[in-house]
């Protein structure tokens, strides 16, 4: 070692070091140049690419869901409004372990197994990993605060507040106002999907469905700066959403409530119209459902109960229930006879309680017919045929009329069509024609079909809404108005069809109209004249009445189960009973309300349906009088 040291030349070693240091420094300079070149590439040459990338990183476009327009009744009472609701959402992309997260959420919120199952179902439905999937809705305030406290432990969750539909009237106005439902993929094919980004609900029934476009409003956008975790740090630019249009309906929520009360739990429907405009003052179908259930999330068992009920609460009997109108059709047949000059107000027949077509064996009976043949109304003209509701008179009249002239006359009243302007889902009923019968039943039109048609039976079907329109048309002395829900004529409401020109029923003189109105007034007010002299409804509603009402009862036979609804065999006897009808309007000289009442399997029209109609009209007129005073 010492030997080595002795020959070590410190100077030479330093020289060599300097040489090597210079070479290494040159290498260092070259590598520095590489770094500079790299930086120049990134920051100068490709700067714009990276600038764009950084902007895309930090900015996002978010949609702002518009808040849905409110729905008011004619007196400014809320029928549908929006309330804040909190829901829990998960952004799958930001969750490390979904099972971990789920078990933490379940523990923190102490959820029951049923809710957990629902959450899993919602998670299974998700389609995008970067979008928030709502897994739990309608959180309570306590749940919201629990989630807020534990937020740091639950990466990827979001508590979102949003407005949800609320129906203050609940089941009372459900069928009139309709309801919204959660937006589905299928819905997006019927609307502009862009407008529904951020929307959770869509109008599915009633007014909510028909005026969807106006109620929904227009979607807005905001440009936000978000951090790497997707949290919004700043809002850069906002293009606000356009709130949906508010709607004012003809509906009178008090009258609506009175109508529900008057039906008193029985199955049926009440439709009240303003004869001057066709505005729907009340539209009730019982049993009903609570539309709020569909907003806050209905449990499968609840939904099953509602949709499987043999009383079909989701079915809107007022516009979709199609029933034989029975005797409520008689005023139309009578007027048809007048217009076709088949009869006049003086002509009488002898009503023995039964009717036979010449050369045929079949006997058509009156409702008053008895086994010992003691029934029958005796001498009957059109006036008496109306207030006594003589079947024989109308069998005879219909048998003598050209069937097509009767049908085309009835058609003017709206039979077989949907006259309503903004209730597209309303059924048209059925006005059977010889062509229809040949096509559908493959049978010719028999004279007996005309006979049955004369008393509103046979294949003829009408909805309560259609029968209310008939009452309104008679109240108007022939002016046909089209039923509508919307009152405000705001031109910005796209769905509102322009001016509807009222039609006039042709071939009936003013005098004829007054005679018919008088006859229907007799149905209610002609009393104290003995069994065969009183109006059919007098005994039930005519004795304690402070105004003049015109009406017509009907009791329709349930030959078959209508509407294609499947009813439980075991309950068949209940559903075989006759339907009770009553149509009415008041006050007679200046009608402000026209009503149709149907009580399913209720029995006699005068005894069951007429008191309901009276209660509704009483409430309406009492308010009218109060308003005038």
């Amino acid at each position, binding site marked *: *070692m010492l030997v*080595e*040291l002795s*020959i*070590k*030349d*410190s*100077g*030479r*070693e*330093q*020289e*060599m*070091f*300097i*040489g*090597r*240091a210079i070479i*290494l*420094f040159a290498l*260092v*300079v070259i*590598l*520095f140049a*590489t*770094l*500079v070149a*790299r*930086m*120049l590439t*990134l*920051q*100068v040459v*490709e*700067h714009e*690419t*990276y*600038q764009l*990338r*950084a*902007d895309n*990183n*930090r900015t996002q476009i978010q949609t702002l869901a518009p808040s849905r327009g409110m729905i008011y009744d004619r007196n400014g009472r809320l029928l549908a409004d929006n309330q804040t609701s909190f829901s829990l959402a998960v952004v799958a992309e930001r969750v490390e372990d979904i099972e971990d997260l789920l078990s933490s959420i379940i523990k923190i919120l102490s959820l029951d197994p049923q809710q957990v199952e629902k959450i899993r179902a919602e998670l299974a439905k998700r389609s995008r990993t970067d979008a928030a999937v709502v897994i739990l809705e309608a959180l309570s305030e306590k749940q919201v605060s629990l989630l807020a406290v534990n937020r740091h432990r639950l990466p990827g969750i979001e508590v979102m507040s949003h407005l949800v539909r609320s129906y203050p009237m609940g089941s009372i106005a459900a069928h009139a106002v309709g309801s919204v439902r959660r937006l589905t993929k299928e819905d997006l094919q019927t609307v502009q999907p862009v407008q529904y980004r951020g929307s959770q609900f869509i109008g599915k029934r009633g007014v909510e469905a028909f005026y969807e476009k106006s109620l929904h409003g227009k979607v807005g956008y905001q440009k936000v*700066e*978000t*951090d*790497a*975790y997707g949290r919004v*740090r700043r809002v850069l630019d906002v293009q606000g959403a356009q709130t949906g249009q508010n709607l004012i309906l003809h509906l009178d929520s008090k009258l609506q409530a009175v109508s529900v009360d008057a039906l008193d739990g029985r199955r049926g429907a009440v439709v009240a119209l303003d004869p001057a405009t066709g505005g729907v003052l009340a539209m009730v179908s019982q049993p009903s459902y609570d539309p709020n259930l569909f907003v806050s999330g209905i449990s499968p068992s609840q939904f099953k109960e509602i949709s499987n009920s043999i009383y079909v609460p989701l079915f809107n009997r007022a516009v979709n229930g199609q029933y034989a109108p029975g005797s409520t059709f008689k005023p139309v047949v009578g007027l048809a006879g007048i217009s076709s000059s088949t009869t006049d107000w003086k002509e009488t027949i002898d009503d023995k309680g039964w009717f036979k077509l010449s050369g045929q064996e079949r006997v058509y009976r009156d409702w008053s017919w008895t086994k010992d043949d003691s029934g029958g109304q005796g001498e009957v003209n059109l006036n008496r045929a109306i207030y006594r509701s003589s079947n024989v008179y109308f069998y005879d009249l219909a048998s003598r009329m050209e069937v097509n002239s009767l049908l085309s006359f009835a058609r003017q009243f709206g039979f077989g069509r949907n006259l309503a302007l903004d209730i597209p889902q309303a059924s048209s009923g059925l006005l059977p024609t010889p062509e229809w019968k040949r096509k559908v039943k493959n049978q010719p039109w028999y004279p007996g079909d005309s006979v049955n048609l004369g008393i509103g039976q046979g294949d003829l079907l009408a909805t309560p809404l259609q029968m209310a329109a008939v009452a309104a048309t008679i109240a108007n002395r022939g002016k046909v108005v089209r039923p509508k829900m919307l009152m405000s004529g705001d031109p910005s409401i796209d769905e509102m069809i322009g001016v509807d020109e009222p039609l006039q029923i042709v071939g009936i003189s003013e005098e004829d109209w007054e005679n018919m109105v008088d006859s229907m007034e007799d149905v209610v007010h002609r009393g104290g004249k003995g069994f065969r002299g009183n109006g059919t409804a007098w005994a039930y509603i005519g004795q304690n009445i402070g105004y003049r009402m015109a009406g017509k009862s009907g009791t329709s036979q349930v030959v078959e189960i209508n509407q294609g609804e499947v009813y439980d065999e075991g309950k068949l006897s209940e559903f075989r009973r006759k339907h009770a009808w009553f149509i009415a309007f008041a006050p007679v000289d200046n009608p402000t309300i026209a009503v149709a009442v149907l009580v399913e399997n209720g029995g006699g029209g005068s005894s069951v349906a007429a008191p309901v109609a009276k209660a509704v009209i009483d409430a309406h007129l009492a308010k009218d009088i109060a308003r005038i005073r």
Partner: protein
Amino acid sequence: MSLDFQRSLPSYSSGAASSWYARIHVDPMLLLLITGVVLFGLVILSSAVDGNDALFYAQVRRMGLAYAALIIAAQLPPAIYLRWAPFIYLVGLGLLILVLVVGVKVKGSQRWIDIPGLFRFQPSELMKIAVPMAVAWYLQQRMLPPSLKHTLFSLLIIAVPAFLIGVEPDLGTSILVAGAGVAVLLLAGLSWRWIFGAFALIAAAAPLLWQFVLKDYQQQRILTLFDPQSDPLGAGWNIIQSTTAIGSGGVFGKGLYQGSQSYLDFLPEARTDFIVAVVGEELGFVGVAFLLTLYLLIIARGLFLAAQAGSTFGRLVAGALVMTFFIYLFVNIAMVSGILPVVGVPLPLVSYGGTSAITLMAGFGIIMSMRTHKAW
């Protein structure tokens, strides 16, 4: 001639004994350049901590400690380092073995020795200085340039700790330690033929290294380098976000505290390994160029001081420490800007964290010591 050269050099130990910096054995120019980088680093860190002032002040305190380490290291004469070099190396090796046995695992890597209630330290950090010192100690007794035998023994001195650190695993430090040791060999005049031969050998062995030495995640990092978009949310995320940050800074940057990539947490490790991306984003090319210039001047000054050290040992140690500093910054910036795979190497004197700053500053103290103490 060489003696004349030596004599012509200005000497801190004679003549200028009255100047304060000569008395405390520091080189004022190098200290000034280092302080420039430290201040620049603190300014950038003040942005990168994103309002977390406590972190900033913790770093200021650590830098104070680092300066103290520099001053202390500069006071120790080279003779002390020479005497202790082999012992420190052996103790370091012992600790490296210990760390693999009883070390504390942090983020999947066993690098720390924990002395409960007292402190926690990384033995590998010590080896950044101990390895070049040991190699220099070994070589300064031999004829230079080193013979094949001495070269191979030097490589053994380097390889054992580099391997032990590599299995912790801490690839970044392993590279730095190996680099420091190899730098000594290069500066000692290793034959060019062998250097190129070694390069050729490594190139030839690369496929084998790939197959048998590199772990899956290390392979992934290299693959990601060539195509970051292949795994944009996983391994590629860091590179995509750091290049985006740097590139979006442009020539003049978005302005201090204005970097959206770091402010909005897109940039991972913005305070530590990826802090140069914050420089690039907020201060632009101008800021990066300024920092690189400071670094280059530090290296130039460091090598200049090393060349003037009073002994072969001093020159080799000082020169190797300067090269370690260079490897540090080059690997870091090259990794962040996407030209080298991701390895955990901080940006010297700028990244948040105390350990590497203290080692680096002690290294500078040693460089100064080698130059400023009397020849021996």
